[in-house]
């Protein structure tokens, strides 16, 4: 009978309950990873935002094809990739935290993008 077999394993110490701190550690490490990914997304987006502020698009447009060529060549693609990576991994991690899985992944992507967007705006325009 399973009941006796499992209870024997419990009583002999072969099967033990994991300590609470392990669950807390997993919870906080997930939270930390999520914040790190969001930070990556924000830094990438801020970098791109800063680039677009320095390379004024209106001025570049005045130079025609040459202006666009400068934009293509100098654009910080690595920051774009960093931001997208942060967003994607951030959403995957976010869906494992608490009850976030109850929201569809589309809604989670929108929520994460909104948070990154708002933090980027704050970072770019509200600097001291």
């Amino acid at each position, binding site marked *: 009978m399973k*009941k006796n*077999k499992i*209870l024997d394993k419990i009583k002999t110490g072969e099967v033990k309950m*994991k*300590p609470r701190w392990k*669950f807390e550690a997993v919870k906080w490490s997930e939270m930390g990873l999520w914040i790190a990914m969001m930070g990556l997304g924000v830094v990438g987006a801020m970098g791109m935002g800063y680039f677009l502020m320095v390379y004024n698009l209106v001025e570049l447009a005045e130079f025609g094809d040459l202006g666009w060529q400068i934009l293509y060549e100098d654009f910080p693609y690595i920051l774009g990739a960093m931001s997208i990576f942060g967003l994607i991994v951030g959403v995957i991690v976010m869906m494992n935290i608490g009850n976030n899985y109850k929201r569809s992944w589309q809604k989670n992507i929108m929520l994460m993008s909104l948070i990154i967007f708002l933090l980027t705006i704050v970072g770019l325009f509200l600097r001291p």
Partner: protein
Amino acid sequence: MTDEEIIKLVVGGDVERYGEIISRYEKRLRGFVKKLIGNNLEVDDIVEDSLISAYQNLRGFDAKQQFSSWILRIAHNKTVDFIKKKKTKIISDGIDDFKDNKKLIEDLEIEKENNIELHRAIEKLELKYREVIVLYFFEEKSYEEISDILHTSVSNVGVMMMRAKEKIKKYYEKK
């Protein structure tokens, strides 16, 4: 005494009480796993693994959740692991119980006499669809609870349920 009250006692040190949880869930988990993978020899091992894993993780159980949903989630994970590892084929004679579920037959609007066909139709469903059918019609879980067990959104549960029914009906139409 509710499951959640017993869990509190077990976590508090009264490990003998876990026997009550095993008595309550052993048969239920066996039925659940059997409906997913058929009369496989390893059903008992999956059930035992699930009950042991539940005990090991009891301190991580959130009392706001239903214990039955939590333990079914563990059994679901163990079953998925088993299928991935063994790449097993579902053995048909383990899912005979489908024909006795009146609610399922009424909901699908099919003839009760056609039990063998229902059996085959469900047998052909992918695991994710079969699981939704089993949890809703046999475990009598709500969409909200199914979303907790499968860790997916409630709307996705609705979509999976709709697709599962469509697939069963399509199978009938072909016959």
